[in-house]
Protein backbone atom coordinates (compact mmCIF):
# COMPACT_ATOMS: atom_id res chain seq x y z
CA UNK A 1 0.00 0.00 0.00
CA UNK A 2 1.14 3.50 -0.84
CA UNK A 3 -0.44 6.52 0.85
CA UNK A 4 0.03 10.02 -0.58
CA UNK A 5 -0.03 12.62 2.17
CA UNK A 6 1.58 16.03 2.48
CA UNK A 7 1.46 17.03 6.10
CA UNK A 8 -0.55 14.92 8.54
CA UNK A 9 2.11 15.91 11.08
CA UNK A 10 1.10 19.55 11.00
CA UNK A 11 -2.58 19.18 10.15
CA UNK A 12 -3.48 16.48 12.70
CA UNK A 13 -0.19 15.86 14.56
CA UNK A 14 -0.04 12.30 13.27
CA UNK A 15 2.96 10.86 11.44
CA UNK A 16 3.47 7.26 10.31
CA UNK A 17 0.14 7.18 8.53
CA UNK A 18 1.15 4.36 6.16
CA UNK A 19 1.10 1.99 9.10
CA UNK A 20 -1.91 3.75 10.64
CA UNK A 21 -4.07 3.31 7.53
CA UNK A 22 -2.91 -0.28 7.02
CA UNK A 23 -3.96 -0.92 10.62
CA UNK A 24 -7.41 0.72 10.50
CA UNK A 25 -8.20 -0.88 7.15
CA UNK A 26 -7.61 -4.27 8.73
CA UNK A 27 -4.42 -5.13 6.88
CA UNK A 28 -1.79 -4.65 9.58
CA UNK A 29 -2.26 -8.18 10.85
CA UNK A 30 -1.49 -9.41 7.34
CA UNK A 31 1.75 -7.42 7.57
CA UNK A 32 1.46 -5.86 4.12
CA UNK A 33 4.11 -3.25 3.24
CA UNK A 34 2.62 0.24 3.78
CA UNK A 35 4.53 3.33 2.65
CA UNK A 36 3.72 7.03 2.90
CA UNK A 37 4.68 9.11 -0.14
CA UNK A 38 5.21 12.88 0.14
CA UNK A 39 5.64 15.44 -2.64
CA UNK A 40 3.40 18.26 -1.38
CA UNK A 41 0.27 18.53 -3.60
CA UNK A 42 1.70 15.83 -5.92
CA UNK A 43 1.81 13.22 -3.13
CA UNK A 44 -1.23 11.40 -4.57
CA UNK A 45 0.13 11.29 -8.12
CA UNK A 46 3.43 9.91 -6.83
CA UNK A 47 1.62 7.39 -4.65
CA UNK A 48 -0.16 6.08 -7.76
CA UNK A 49 3.10 6.05 -9.70
CA UNK A 50 4.84 4.08 -6.94
CA UNK A 51 2.03 1.50 -7.06
CA UNK A 52 2.34 1.24 -10.85
CA UNK A 53 6.12 0.83 -10.63
CA UNK A 54 5.76 -1.83 -7.91
CA UNK A 55 3.30 -3.86 -9.97
CA UNK A 56 5.06 -3.33 -13.32
CA UNK A 57 8.36 -4.45 -11.82
CA UNK A 58 6.84 -7.65 -10.52
CA UNK A 59 7.95 -6.84 -6.98
CA UNK A 60 4.32 -6.62 -5.82
CA UNK A 61 1.12 -8.15 -7.13
CA UNK A 62 -1.88 -6.16 -5.92
CA UNK A 63 -1.25 -2.68 -4.54
CA UNK A 64 -3.52 0.00 -3.05
CA UNK A 65 -2.64 3.54 -4.14
CA UNK A 66 -4.29 5.94 -1.75
CA UNK A 67 -4.14 9.61 -0.86
CA UNK A 68 -5.50 11.54 2.10
CA UNK A 69 -5.42 14.98 3.74
CA UNK A 70 -7.35 16.25 6.77
CA UNK A 71 -6.90 20.02 6.53
CA UNK A 72 -9.76 21.68 8.40
CA UNK A 73 -8.78 20.94 11.99
CA UNK A 74 -6.34 23.88 11.96
CA UNK A 75 -7.02 27.59 11.43
CA UNK A 76 -6.37 29.43 8.18
CA UNK A 77 -3.04 30.88 9.37
CA UNK A 78 -1.65 27.44 10.15
CA UNK A 79 -2.91 25.91 6.91
CA UNK A 80 -1.46 28.80 4.86
CA UNK A 81 1.91 28.29 6.57
CA UNK A 82 1.80 24.50 6.21
CA UNK A 83 1.08 24.78 2.49
CA UNK A 84 3.90 27.33 2.15
CA UNK A 85 6.17 24.47 3.18
CA UNK A 86 5.73 23.10 -0.35
CA UNK A 87 7.90 25.98 -1.55
CA UNK A 88 11.42 26.87 -0.35
CA UNK A 89 11.02 27.70 3.35
CA UNK A 90 14.33 29.59 3.63
CA UNK A 91 14.01 31.71 0.49
CA UNK A 92 10.29 31.97 -0.26
CA UNK A 93 8.37 31.30 2.97
CA UNK A 94 10.82 33.28 5.11
CA UNK A 95 10.06 36.56 3.31
CA UNK A 96 6.29 36.07 3.47
CA UNK A 97 5.52 34.21 0.25
CA UNK A 98 2.22 32.33 0.44
CA UNK A 99 1.05 29.76 -2.09
CA UNK A 100 -1.54 32.04 -3.65
CA UNK A 101 1.19 34.71 -3.69
CA UNK A 102 3.57 32.54 -5.71
CA UNK A 103 0.89 31.60 -8.25
CA UNK A 104 -0.14 35.28 -8.34
CA UNK A 105 3.41 36.11 -9.42
CA UNK A 106 3.03 33.52 -12.21
CA UNK A 107 -0.23 35.25 -13.19
CA UNK A 108 1.39 38.71 -13.19
CA UNK A 109 4.25 37.47 -15.38
CA UNK A 110 1.85 35.61 -17.69
CA UNK A 111 -0.56 38.52 -18.14
CA UNK A 112 2.37 40.85 -18.80
CA UNK A 113 3.52 38.65 -21.68
CA UNK A 114 0.40 37.01 -23.13
CA UNK A 115 -3.07 38.29 -24.02
CA UNK A 116 -5.00 36.71 -21.13
CA UNK A 117 -7.94 38.75 -19.87
CA UNK A 118 -9.32 38.87 -16.33
CA UNK A 119 -12.60 37.45 -17.69
CA UNK A 120 -10.87 34.49 -19.39
CA UNK A 121 -9.10 33.65 -16.14
CA UNK A 122 -12.43 33.76 -14.30
CA UNK A 123 -13.99 31.46 -16.90
CA UNK A 124 -11.67 28.66 -15.72
CA UNK A 125 -13.37 28.78 -12.30
CA UNK A 126 -16.84 29.17 -13.83
CA UNK A 127 -16.28 26.08 -16.00
CA UNK A 128 -14.94 24.02 -13.10
CA UNK A 129 -17.87 24.98 -10.85
CA UNK A 130 -20.24 24.00 -13.68
CA UNK A 131 -18.61 20.56 -13.71
CA UNK A 132 -18.52 20.38 -9.91
CA UNK A 133 -22.27 21.00 -9.86
CA UNK A 134 -22.59 17.71 -11.76
CA UNK A 135 -20.33 15.76 -9.40
CA UNK A 136 -22.04 14.36 -6.29
CA UNK A 137 -18.72 14.13 -4.39
CA UNK A 138 -17.57 17.70 -5.18
CA UNK A 139 -16.97 20.09 -2.27
CA UNK A 140 -18.77 22.90 -4.14
CA UNK A 141 -21.76 21.81 -6.22
CA UNK A 142 -23.10 25.21 -7.19
CA UNK A 143 -22.53 27.06 -10.45
CA UNK A 144 -20.98 30.52 -10.39
CA UNK A 145 -20.63 33.38 -12.88
CA UNK A 146 -17.69 35.50 -14.05
CA UNK A 147 -19.02 38.23 -11.72
CA UNK A 148 -18.78 35.86 -8.73
CA UNK A 149 -15.07 35.53 -9.40
CA UNK A 150 -14.34 39.16 -10.26
CA UNK A 151 -16.26 40.51 -7.24
CA UNK A 152 -14.68 38.09 -4.75
CA UNK A 153 -12.01 39.48 -2.43
CA UNK A 154 -8.38 39.78 -3.51
CA UNK A 155 -6.11 37.13 -1.97
CA UNK A 156 -2.88 37.94 -3.82
CA UNK A 157 -3.16 40.33 -6.76
CA UNK A 158 -4.40 39.55 -9.39
CA UNK A 159 -5.82 36.34 -7.87
CA UNK A 160 -9.14 36.53 -6.02
CA UNK A 161 -10.82 34.09 -3.67
CA UNK A 162 -12.64 32.33 -6.53
CA UNK A 163 -9.35 31.89 -8.43
CA UNK A 164 -8.13 29.67 -5.57
CA UNK A 165 -8.82 26.05 -4.73
CA UNK A 166 -10.23 25.58 -1.22
CA UNK A 167 -9.04 23.93 1.99
CA UNK A 168 -10.50 20.42 1.91
CA UNK A 169 -10.73 17.18 3.84
CA UNK A 170 -10.63 14.22 1.50
CA UNK A 171 -9.36 10.79 0.64
CA UNK A 172 -9.27 8.55 -2.42
CA UNK A 173 -7.94 5.12 -3.30
CA UNK A 174 -7.51 2.88 -6.33
CA UNK A 175 -6.23 -0.67 -6.71
CA UNK A 176 -3.41 -1.48 -9.11
CA UNK A 177 -2.87 -5.05 -10.32
CA UNK A 178 -1.24 -6.77 -13.32
CA UNK A 179 -3.54 -6.65 -16.38
CA UNK A 180 -3.63 -10.43 -16.64
CA UNK A 181 -4.99 -10.66 -13.09
CA UNK A 182 -7.39 -7.71 -13.23
CA UNK A 183 -10.35 -9.80 -14.37
CA UNK A 184 -10.17 -11.85 -11.17
CA UNK A 185 -11.34 -8.75 -9.29
CA UNK A 186 -13.54 -6.79 -11.74
CA UNK A 187 -14.64 -6.61 -15.36
CA UNK A 188 -14.61 -2.80 -15.27
CA UNK A 189 -10.86 -2.20 -14.99
CA UNK A 190 -8.93 0.35 -17.02
CA UNK A 191 -5.40 0.09 -18.35
CA UNK A 192 -2.49 2.31 -17.28
CA UNK A 193 -0.90 3.44 -20.55
CA UNK A 194 1.79 5.72 -19.13
CA UNK A 195 3.25 6.95 -15.87
CA UNK A 196 5.69 9.86 -15.94
CA UNK A 197 7.25 12.14 -13.36
CA UNK A 198 9.57 15.13 -13.53
CA UNK A 199 11.12 17.69 -11.21
CA UNK A 200 12.23 21.31 -11.41
CA UNK A 201 13.66 23.92 -9.03
CA UNK A 202 11.86 24.10 -5.69
CA UNK A 203 11.73 27.92 -5.89
CA UNK A 204 9.62 29.70 -8.47
CA UNK A 205 12.31 32.38 -8.83
CA UNK A 206 14.88 29.85 -10.14
CA UNK A 207 12.73 28.66 -13.08
CA UNK A 208 13.96 29.18 -16.64
CA UNK A 209 10.56 30.80 -17.37
CA UNK A 210 8.25 31.99 -14.57
CA UNK A 211 5.09 31.25 -16.60
CA UNK A 212 6.09 27.81 -17.85
CA UNK A 213 6.22 24.68 -15.69
CA UNK A 214 9.06 22.77 -17.31
CA UNK A 215 8.37 19.74 -15.11
CA UNK A 216 4.88 19.65 -16.70
CA UNK A 217 6.43 19.95 -20.17
CA UNK A 218 8.85 17.08 -19.42
CA UNK A 219 6.38 14.74 -17.70
CA UNK A 220 3.69 15.37 -20.35
CA UNK A 221 6.14 14.66 -23.17
CA UNK A 222 7.47 11.50 -21.49
CA UNK A 223 3.95 10.18 -20.85
CA UNK A 224 2.80 10.65 -24.45
CA UNK A 225 6.06 9.24 -25.85
CA UNK A 226 6.01 6.14 -23.67
CA UNK A 227 2.36 5.49 -24.56
CA UNK A 228 3.01 6.15 -28.24
CA UNK A 229 0.12 8.61 -28.30
CA UNK A 230 -0.42 12.14 -29.58
CA UNK A 231 -2.50 14.97 -28.11
CA UNK A 232 -5.37 14.17 -30.47
CA UNK A 233 -5.74 10.75 -28.82
CA UNK A 234 -6.55 12.25 -25.41
CA UNK A 235 -10.32 12.50 -24.83
CA UNK A 236 -10.21 14.33 -21.49
CA UNK A 237 -7.68 15.59 -18.97
CA UNK A 238 -7.72 16.30 -15.26
CA UNK A 239 -5.19 19.09 -14.67
CA UNK A 240 -3.87 20.58 -11.44
CA UNK A 241 -5.92 23.80 -11.17
CA UNK A 242 -4.88 24.81 -7.64
CA UNK A 243 -5.40 28.32 -9.06
CA UNK A 244 -7.12 29.41 -12.27
CA UNK A 245 -3.78 30.50 -13.74
CA UNK A 246 -2.42 27.00 -13.06
CA UNK A 247 -5.03 25.43 -15.38
CA UNK A 248 -4.14 27.92 -18.12
CA UNK A 249 -0.44 27.04 -17.80
CA UNK A 250 -1.13 23.29 -17.56
CA UNK A 251 -3.14 23.12 -20.81
CA UNK A 252 -0.32 24.89 -22.62
CA UNK A 253 2.63 23.19 -20.94
CA UNK A 254 1.11 19.74 -21.57
CA UNK A 255 1.18 20.76 -25.22
CA UNK A 256 -2.56 20.93 -25.99
CA UNK A 257 -2.12 24.44 -27.45
CA UNK A 258 0.51 27.12 -27.95
CA UNK A 259 1.69 29.28 -25.07
CA UNK A 260 -0.73 32.15 -24.66
CA UNK A 261 -3.75 30.41 -26.24
CA UNK A 262 -5.38 28.60 -23.28
CA UNK A 263 -7.39 31.64 -22.19
CA UNK A 264 -9.02 31.84 -25.62
CA UNK A 265 -9.62 28.05 -25.63
CA UNK A 266 -11.40 28.38 -22.28
CA UNK A 267 -13.47 31.35 -23.46
CA UNK A 268 -14.52 29.45 -26.61
CA UNK A 269 -15.68 26.47 -24.54
CA UNK A 270 -13.15 24.03 -25.98
CA UNK A 271 -12.21 22.87 -22.46
CA UNK A 272 -15.85 22.65 -21.32
CA UNK A 273 -17.71 19.39 -20.71
CA UNK A 274 -19.10 19.41 -24.28
CA UNK A 275 -15.95 20.85 -25.88
CA UNK A 276 -13.26 19.16 -27.96
CA UNK A 277 -10.97 18.76 -24.93
CA UNK A 278 -12.92 18.56 -21.66
CA UNK A 279 -10.62 19.71 -18.83
CA UNK A 280 -11.39 18.91 -15.19
CA UNK A 281 -14.71 17.15 -15.62
CA UNK A 282 -14.66 16.42 -11.86
CA UNK A 283 -14.80 20.15 -11.12
CA UNK A 284 -11.05 20.16 -10.67
CA UNK A 285 -9.27 21.26 -7.54
CA UNK A 286 -11.35 24.45 -7.63
CA UNK A 287 -14.82 22.93 -7.23
CA UNK A 288 -14.26 19.25 -6.40
CA UNK A 289 -11.79 20.34 -3.69
CA UNK A 290 -8.09 20.07 -3.00
CA UNK A 291 -7.23 17.74 -0.12
CA UNK A 292 -3.59 18.03 -1.15
CA UNK A 293 -2.32 14.47 -0.63
CA UNK A 294 -5.52 12.94 -2.04
CA UNK A 295 -5.84 15.11 -5.15
CA UNK A 296 -3.62 13.02 -7.45
CA UNK A 297 -5.61 9.87 -6.66
CA UNK A 298 -8.94 11.67 -7.00
CA UNK A 299 -7.89 12.69 -10.51
CA UNK A 300 -7.23 9.02 -11.34
CA UNK A 301 -10.65 8.09 -9.89
CA UNK A 302 -12.37 10.70 -12.06
CA UNK A 303 -10.71 9.46 -15.25
CA UNK A 304 -11.51 5.83 -14.33
CA UNK A 305 -15.18 6.76 -13.87
CA UNK A 306 -15.20 8.56 -17.22
CA UNK A 307 -13.55 5.64 -19.04
CA UNK A 308 -16.06 3.23 -17.50
CA UNK A 309 -18.94 5.45 -18.61
CA UNK A 310 -20.03 5.96 -15.00
CA UNK A 311 -19.63 9.72 -14.70
CA UNK A 312 -23.38 10.45 -14.79
CA UNK A 313 -24.32 14.05 -15.66
CA UNK A 314 -20.71 14.94 -16.44
CA UNK A 315 -19.99 11.93 -18.67
CA UNK A 316 -17.87 12.65 -21.74
CA UNK A 317 -19.54 10.48 -24.42
CA UNK A 318 -17.28 7.74 -25.75
CA UNK A 319 -14.25 8.67 -23.64
CA UNK A 320 -11.50 6.11 -24.29
CA UNK A 321 -8.24 7.71 -23.20
CA UNK A 322 -7.77 10.16 -20.33
CA UNK A 323 -4.84 11.99 -18.78
CA UNK A 324 -4.12 13.24 -15.27
CA UNK A 325 -1.68 16.01 -14.31
CA UNK A 326 -0.70 16.51 -10.66
CA UNK A 327 1.67 19.28 -9.48
CA UNK A 328 3.66 19.59 -6.27
CA UNK A 329 4.45 23.12 -5.08
CA UNK A 330 4.70 25.68 -7.86
CA UNK A 331 5.96 22.99 -10.24
CA UNK A 332 8.93 21.34 -8.52
CA UNK A 333 7.26 17.92 -8.92
CA UNK A 334 4.84 16.84 -11.63
CA UNK A 335 3.21 13.46 -12.25
CA UNK A 336 1.34 12.70 -15.49
CA UNK A 337 -0.62 9.52 -16.10
CA UNK A 338 -2.50 8.22 -19.12
CA UNK A 339 -5.32 5.69 -18.70
CA UNK A 340 -7.24 3.78 -21.36
CA UNK A 341 -10.61 2.06 -21.34
CA UNK A 342 -10.62 -1.69 -22.02
Amino acid at each position, binding site marked *: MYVGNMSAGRFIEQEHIGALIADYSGMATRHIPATRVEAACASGGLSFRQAVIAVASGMEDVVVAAGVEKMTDVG*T*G*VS*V*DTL*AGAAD*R*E*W*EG*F*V*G*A*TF*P*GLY*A*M*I*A*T*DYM*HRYPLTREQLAQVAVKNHFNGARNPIAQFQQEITVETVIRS*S*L*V*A*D*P*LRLFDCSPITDGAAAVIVAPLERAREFTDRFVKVRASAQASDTI*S*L*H*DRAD*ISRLDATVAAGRRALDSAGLSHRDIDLVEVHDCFTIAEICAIEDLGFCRKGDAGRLTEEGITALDGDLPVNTSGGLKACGHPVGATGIKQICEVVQQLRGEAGKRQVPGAEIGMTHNVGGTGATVAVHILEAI
Partner: protein
Amino acid sequence: MSVARFWRKIPQRYNLIGTRCGTCGTYFFPPRSFCPSCRREGKIEEYRFPGKGKVVTHTVIRSASEQFERQTPYVLAIIQLDEGPRFTAQVVAEPGEIQVGTPVRPVFRRISADGESGVIHYGTKFVPVR
Protein backbone atom coordinates in the same frame (compact mmCIF):
# COMPACT_ATOMS: atom_id res chain seq x y z
CA MET B 1 11.49 29.34 12.56
CA SER B 2 14.06 28.21 15.14
CA VAL B 3 16.76 30.65 16.30
CA ALA B 4 19.50 28.34 14.99
CA ARG B 5 17.86 28.05 11.62
CA PHE B 6 17.57 31.82 11.26
CA TRP B 7 21.08 32.45 12.64
CA ARG B 8 22.72 30.12 10.12
CA LYS B 9 21.65 32.28 7.17
CA ILE B 10 22.37 35.73 8.66
CA PRO B 11 25.22 36.62 6.24
CA GLN B 12 22.98 35.90 3.25
CA ARG B 13 19.89 37.58 4.71
CA TYR B 14 21.62 40.71 6.06
CA ASN B 15 24.34 41.33 3.48
CA LEU B 16 23.34 39.41 0.34
CA ILE B 17 26.38 37.15 0.55
CA GLY B 18 25.99 34.69 -2.30
CA THR B 19 28.35 32.66 -4.43
CA ARG B 20 29.90 32.68 -7.88
CA CYS B 21 31.36 29.88 -9.99
CA GLY B 22 34.96 30.74 -10.86
CA THR B 23 34.91 28.28 -13.77
CA CYS B 24 31.90 29.52 -15.78
CA GLY B 25 31.26 32.88 -14.08
CA THR B 26 27.64 32.18 -13.04
CA TYR B 27 26.42 34.04 -9.92
CA PHE B 28 24.18 32.39 -7.32
CA PHE B 29 21.79 34.02 -4.90
CA PRO B 30 20.49 32.32 -2.81
CA PRO B 31 24.00 30.84 -2.65
CA ARG B 32 24.70 27.37 -4.00
CA SER B 33 27.56 25.18 -2.92
CA PHE B 34 28.05 23.59 -6.31
CA CYS B 35 27.56 24.77 -9.88
CA PRO B 36 24.81 22.86 -11.75
CA SER B 37 26.62 23.46 -15.08
CA CYS B 38 30.23 22.72 -14.12
CA ARG B 39 29.49 20.23 -11.32
CA ARG B 40 32.80 18.88 -9.96
CA GLU B 41 34.77 21.17 -12.28
CA GLY B 42 33.11 24.20 -10.70
CA LYS B 43 35.01 26.50 -8.33
CA ILE B 44 32.52 28.07 -5.92
CA GLU B 45 33.63 31.29 -4.23
CA GLU B 46 31.85 33.78 -1.99
CA TYR B 47 30.46 36.96 -3.58
CA ARG B 48 28.76 39.94 -1.95
CA PHE B 49 26.02 41.34 -4.16
CA PRO B 50 25.63 45.15 -4.15
CA GLY B 51 21.91 44.40 -4.55
CA LYS B 52 20.93 46.54 -7.52
CA GLY B 53 18.26 44.86 -9.59
CA LYS B 54 14.78 45.01 -11.09
CA VAL B 55 11.32 43.56 -10.57
CA VAL B 56 10.63 40.44 -12.67
CA THR B 57 7.11 39.82 -11.35
CA HIS B 58 5.12 40.87 -8.30
CA THR B 59 1.95 40.54 -6.23
CA VAL B 60 0.27 42.06 -3.20
CA ILE B 61 -0.23 39.55 -0.36
CA ARG B 62 -3.59 40.24 1.32
CA SER B 63 -4.01 36.96 3.19
CA ALA B 64 -0.91 35.69 4.97
CA SER B 65 0.29 33.17 7.53
CA GLU B 66 0.05 34.18 11.22
CA GLN B 67 3.62 35.49 11.25
CA PHE B 68 2.88 37.97 8.49
CA GLU B 69 -0.83 38.69 9.02
CA ARG B 70 -0.21 42.06 10.71
CA GLN B 71 1.83 43.27 7.75
CA THR B 72 -0.88 42.74 5.12
CA PRO B 73 -1.21 44.06 2.51
CA TYR B 74 2.45 43.80 1.51
CA VAL B 75 4.18 43.75 -1.86
CA LEU B 76 6.09 40.60 -2.78
CA ALA B 77 8.26 40.30 -5.88
CA ILE B 78 10.82 38.23 -7.69
CA ILE B 79 13.90 40.41 -8.03
CA GLN B 80 16.60 39.91 -10.65
CA LEU B 81 19.98 41.21 -9.53
CA ASP B 82 22.22 42.92 -12.11
CA GLU B 83 24.55 39.89 -11.98
CA GLY B 84 21.67 37.59 -13.03
CA PRO B 85 20.35 35.65 -10.01
CA ARG B 86 16.67 35.86 -9.14
CA PHE B 87 15.11 35.56 -5.71
CA THR B 88 11.95 36.40 -3.81
CA ALA B 89 11.72 39.46 -1.56
CA GLN B 90 9.32 42.04 -0.19
CA VAL B 91 9.29 45.48 -1.76
CA VAL B 92 8.64 48.46 0.51
CA ALA B 93 6.03 50.14 -1.68
CA GLU B 94 2.32 50.80 -1.93
CA PRO B 95 0.22 48.31 -3.93
CA GLY B 96 0.35 49.49 -7.54
CA GLU B 97 3.57 51.43 -7.05
CA ILE B 98 5.83 48.90 -8.80
CA GLN B 99 5.62 47.23 -12.19
CA VAL B 100 7.48 44.57 -14.13
CA GLY B 101 10.90 46.11 -14.80
CA THR B 102 10.88 48.66 -11.93
CA PRO B 103 14.52 49.16 -10.75
CA VAL B 104 15.08 48.46 -7.05
CA ARG B 105 17.79 48.71 -4.40
CA PRO B 106 18.15 46.80 -1.10
CA VAL B 107 17.30 48.03 2.41
CA PHE B 108 17.83 46.35 5.78
CA ARG B 109 14.44 45.72 7.40
CA ARG B 110 12.55 43.67 9.95
CA ILE B 111 11.01 40.71 8.08
CA SER B 112 8.91 39.01 10.78
CA ALA B 113 8.82 38.11 14.46
CA ASP B 114 8.05 34.89 16.33
CA GLY B 115 5.04 36.19 18.25
CA GLU B 116 5.00 39.11 20.74
CA SER B 117 8.17 38.21 22.66
CA GLY B 118 9.98 35.94 20.20
CA VAL B 119 13.01 36.47 18.02
CA ILE B 120 12.80 39.28 15.47
CA HIS B 121 13.91 38.19 12.01
CA TYR B 122 15.75 40.84 10.05
CA GLY B 123 16.72 40.64 6.41
CA THR B 124 16.77 42.43 3.08
CA LYS B 125 13.79 44.11 1.46
CA PHE B 126 13.87 46.31 -1.61
CA VAL B 127 12.70 49.82 -2.45
CA PRO B 128 11.90 51.24 -5.89
CA VAL B 129 14.61 53.50 -7.32
CA ARG B 130 13.13 56.74 -8.66
